[in-house]
């Protein structure tokens, strides 16, 4: 069914009015299922919470054999809707096209945790695979009864169960098949659809779920029998996205909906002093709930105009240290120091080492930079029931949060997920600021309210990627063997989960997580005396703000790892350069993990690595254009990635232009090669943007990078030639592909600039001004 009809409005036919409740049918949800939710709404029943151990929570087999599969994870633009369907269809032995995924509808989809950290395939996908295997076993058990043939003698193809025709049986009559009289009788068959036709399935062996562990009776297929997994099946969401059939959350409208623009505080810790009046003739109205100030109107443009013209006086607050001073402030702020790793005696080994190096790296505050600013619709009804339309990365988490902030029960709240702009962690710990504001406005006005943030709102108020510092120290002998290694990081928090709505309104949330900085990832190199520490910083400004946050910082694609790997891999390169060794050879000397060695060598080969020390003999800071190469390695989310960056530097302008980037990656089992290649490409281009251009700047009151002019992104004319190599390892469980390649970029770029110029850049971003100054 289609949900769009008329001017961008959800179809009336798709809206079930029930006792004043409004239930919107989501496109992907089978009519039968949504109707049951509508009935629940009509009779005042609570919104259900799907039970993970019920097979019927996960799938429905329709009479025509099509399969509806429900997942708690959501499509963030990285192809997991397709990859999950491949894994499920493979295990069920149905055609790929037979499976339709339903995502992120809290009344019908199981809670599989947040969609983040490259985890969909590795966790939710592997869980779905087990449950699909159990579903297949259950279907075979039904077929066995129907056909009166033992399940072990049945086979399935395209959702049709037949008696196995084993060629061997023809030569061994009476061997094991006596008494059935049906062995090899291919006329005996039954389809999944005939077996089930929409009825609930009960697993033959109870499903046991214990935290992250799922146990089923059935055994999934061996990878050698895969027909769908491993194929580059075109992504199922792309035709709709190209032909404008996808409804983004920004496109959702419901009857009687009002448009709101929220006017956010002037400074991060500012509170309302006074709110003036809208100009005469305005078609909008002002809503003030504590420090939540919004202008609301029937037409979106009236709300925008109203917000631009409403005088609001905010208290002064100047609790931030400014962009220039945050590193010093961070070092001076007391913080818990966590030991990530400690082995041997660093101090002793460092003190007695023949050679020593010490240096500091710095990464900036960054934006997730959703191209579509935050947007959500909320409908809080008079009976206390709530529906929220959101692009959140965790619908169930948002559902719980909204219940808490409205002092409602979880069963009074449903969250419907819709596609959003690529968010890269912006909506994974902060589940959706706009939704948290919309529910309070809707409750106040008694109508559905759509909150659309402005570009400036998003740039200033998104929870940013955290700024970090890395003090590195290493001791090494004459031949370059590293005998002592220390990495001491200072990291702003990576896990801010505050939601602006309740905080501005003044509602106490019971469990605001204490933000902490994080470390991540295991070490690949074998350094005998190792010490890795992280100062877990509070948010800048949090100490003096009336709100429970300072400059909010949270997970941004490959959080922690990106910063840690930049420092670690750059420093490895600096040591290699000091002792005059080829950066590739130097790395291989300190590695023992065969998968790490394999991806490094694969990247070097495909990237045409020139084996020699850096900088190159003709490195220069004055020639017209100079070129260089850099190499890097990471283990992230269980996936090994290595990259070779080739670039050119123009010293006169400071411009760094990537010319060719090669990434080799071993993610264990490959689900969809083409989708993985596109993910690698995405990581390369997005991270080139972060490294070369991006920095969130702030004064003492608030963020001053307020748009794409003051916070520019990489442009298309800076796109390098991209080569990808997928290292196959089908016998190993699949691991994440959305993040690993991010991490090889910053140090490889820094090292390639060094190779070209002999100058090492240790503070991201490498903007033309920064590079020009460094080379000058």
């Amino acid at each position: 069914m289609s949900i769009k009809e008329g001017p961008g409005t959800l179809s009336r036919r798709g809206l079930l009015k029930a006792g004043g409740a409004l239930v919107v049918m989501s496109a992907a949800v089978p009519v039968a299922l949504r109707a049951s939710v509508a009935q629940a709404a009509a009779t005042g029943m609570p919104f259900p919470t799907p039970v993970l151990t019920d097979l019927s929570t996960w799938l429905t087999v329709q009479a025509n054999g099509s399969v509806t599969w429900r997942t708690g994870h959501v499509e963030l633009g990285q192809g997991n809707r397709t990859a999950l369907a491949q894994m499920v269809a493979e295990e069920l032995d149905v055609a790929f096209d037979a499976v339709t995924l339903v995502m992120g509808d809290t009344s019908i989809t199981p809670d599989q945790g947040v969609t983040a950290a490259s985890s969909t395939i590795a966790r939710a996908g592997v869980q779905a695979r087990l449950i699909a295997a159990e579903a297949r076993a259950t279907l075979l058990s039904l077929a066995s009864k129907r056909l009166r043939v033992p399940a072990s003698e049945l086979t399935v193809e395209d959702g049709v169960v037949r008696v196995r025709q084993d060629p061997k049986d023809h030569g061994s009559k009476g061997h094991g098949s006596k008494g059935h009289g049906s062995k090899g009788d291919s006329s005996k068959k039954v389809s999944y659809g005939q077996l089930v036709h929409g009825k609930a399935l009960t697993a033959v062996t109870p499903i046991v779920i214990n935290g992250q562990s799922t146990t089923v009776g059935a055994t999934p297929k061996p990878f050698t029998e895969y027909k769908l997994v491993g194929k580059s099946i075109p992504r199922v969401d792309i035709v709709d996205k190209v032909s404008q059939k996808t409804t983004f959350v920004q496109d959702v409208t419901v009857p009687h909906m009002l448009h709101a623009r929220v006017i956010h505080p002037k400074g991060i810790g500012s509170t309302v002093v006074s709110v003036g009046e809208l100009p005469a003739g305005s078609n909008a109205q002002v809503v003030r709930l504590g420090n939540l100030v919004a202008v609301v109107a029937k037409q979106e443009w009236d709300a925008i105009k109203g917000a631009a013209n409403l005088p609001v006086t905010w208290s002064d607050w100047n609790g931030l240290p400014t962009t220039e001073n945050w590193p010093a402030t961070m070092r001076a702020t007391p913080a818990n120091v966590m030991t990530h790793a400690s082995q041997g005696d660093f101090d002793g080994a460092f003190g007695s080492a023949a050679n020593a190096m010490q240096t500091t790296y710095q990464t900036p505050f960054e934006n997730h930079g959703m191209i579509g600013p935050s947007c959500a619709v909320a409908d809080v009804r008079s009976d206390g029931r709530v529906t929220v339309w959101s692009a959140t990365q965790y619908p169930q988490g948002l559902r719980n949060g909204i219940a808490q902030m409205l002092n409602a029960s979880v069963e009074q709240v449903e969250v419907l997920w819709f596609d959003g702009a690529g968010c890269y962690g912006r909506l994974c710990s902060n589940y959706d600021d706009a939704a948290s504001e919309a529910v309070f406005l809707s409750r106040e006005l008694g109508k559905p309210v759509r909150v659309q943030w402005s570009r400036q709102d998003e740039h200033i108020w998104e929870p940013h990627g955290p700024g970090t510092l890395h003090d590195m120290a290493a001791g090494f002998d004459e031949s370059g063997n590293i005998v002592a290694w220390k990495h001491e990081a200072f990291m702003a928090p990576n896990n801010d989960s505050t939601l602006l709505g309740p905080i501005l309104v003044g509602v106490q949330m019971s469990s605001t997580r204490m933000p902490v900085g994080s470390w991540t990832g295991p070490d690949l190199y074998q350094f005998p005396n190792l010490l890795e520490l992280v100062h877990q910083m509070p948010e800048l400004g949090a100490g003096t703000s009336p709100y429970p946050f300072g400059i909010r910082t949270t997970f941004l694609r490959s959080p922690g790892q990106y910063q840690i790997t930049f420092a670690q891999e750059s420093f490895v390169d600096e040591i290699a350069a000091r002792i005059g060794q080829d950066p590739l050879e130097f790395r291989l000397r300190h590695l023992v993990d065969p998968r790490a060695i394999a991806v490094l060598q694969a990247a070097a080969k495909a990237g045409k690595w020139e084996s020699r020390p850096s900088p190159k003999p003709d490195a220069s800071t004055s020639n017209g254009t100079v070129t260089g190469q850099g190499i890097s390695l990471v283990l992230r989310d269980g996936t090994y990635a290595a990259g070779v960056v080739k670039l050119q530097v123009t010293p006169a302008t400071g411009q760094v232009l990537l010319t060719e980037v090669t990434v080799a990656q071993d993610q264990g089992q490959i689900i969809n090669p083409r989708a993985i290649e596109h993910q690698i490409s995405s990581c390369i281009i997005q991270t080139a943007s972060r490294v070369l251009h991006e920095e969130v700047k702030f004064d003492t009151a608030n963020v001053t990078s307020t748009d794409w002019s003051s916070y520019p992104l990489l442009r298309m004319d800076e796109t390098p030639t991209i080569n990808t190599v997928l290292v196959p390892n089908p016998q190993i469980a699949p691991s994440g592909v959305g993040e690993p390649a991010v991490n090889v970029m910053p140090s490889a770029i820094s090292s390639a600039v060094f190779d070209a110029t002999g100058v090492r850049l240790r503070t991201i971003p490498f903007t033309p001004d920064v590079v020009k100054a460094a080379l000058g």
Partner: protein
Amino acid sequence: MAIELVVNGKKEKVTSSPDTPLLYVLRGELGLTGPKFGCGLEQCGACSVLANDASRRSCVKPVSDFDGQSITTVEGLPAAWAKAKKLRHVDLHPIQQAWIEEQVPQCGYCQNGMMITAANLLGTNPDPSVSDIMTAFSTSGPSAHLCRCGTYDAIIKAVQRAAKLMAEGAGDEH
């Protein structure tokens, strides 16, 4: 005098106030959600439409600036191609077909603007070089067309593929 537009080949009398940016008329009044709100500052390109066949941003300039003009949103691309090729109906413009074949979108939010500017480029330069494509998307408009998901590489390939499809007269069915 009411403002009149021809939108995707159809005459429309605008009822929104004349100072409303074209984007809100297209999305709010006419229900065309292909053009997206990205910045409201002409800095990202997500709102792009063709106005009298030229790629224009719709998020800032008031609808009154477009009075009498022919506006094509991404929803209107197939019909525009059908008309140009004197075909009765096509489901997809060759640019859209190329976008699918190259599997361009990730989140897809910015791709409406990307396809509009591809249409503008291929309308004036049927066989663009990589450099021509980069220029069209980076420096030819009020700002570069921005994509956060990193699809620039796929877009370049898709524009080249679309150029071939259009030269072959493809796109009559999908």
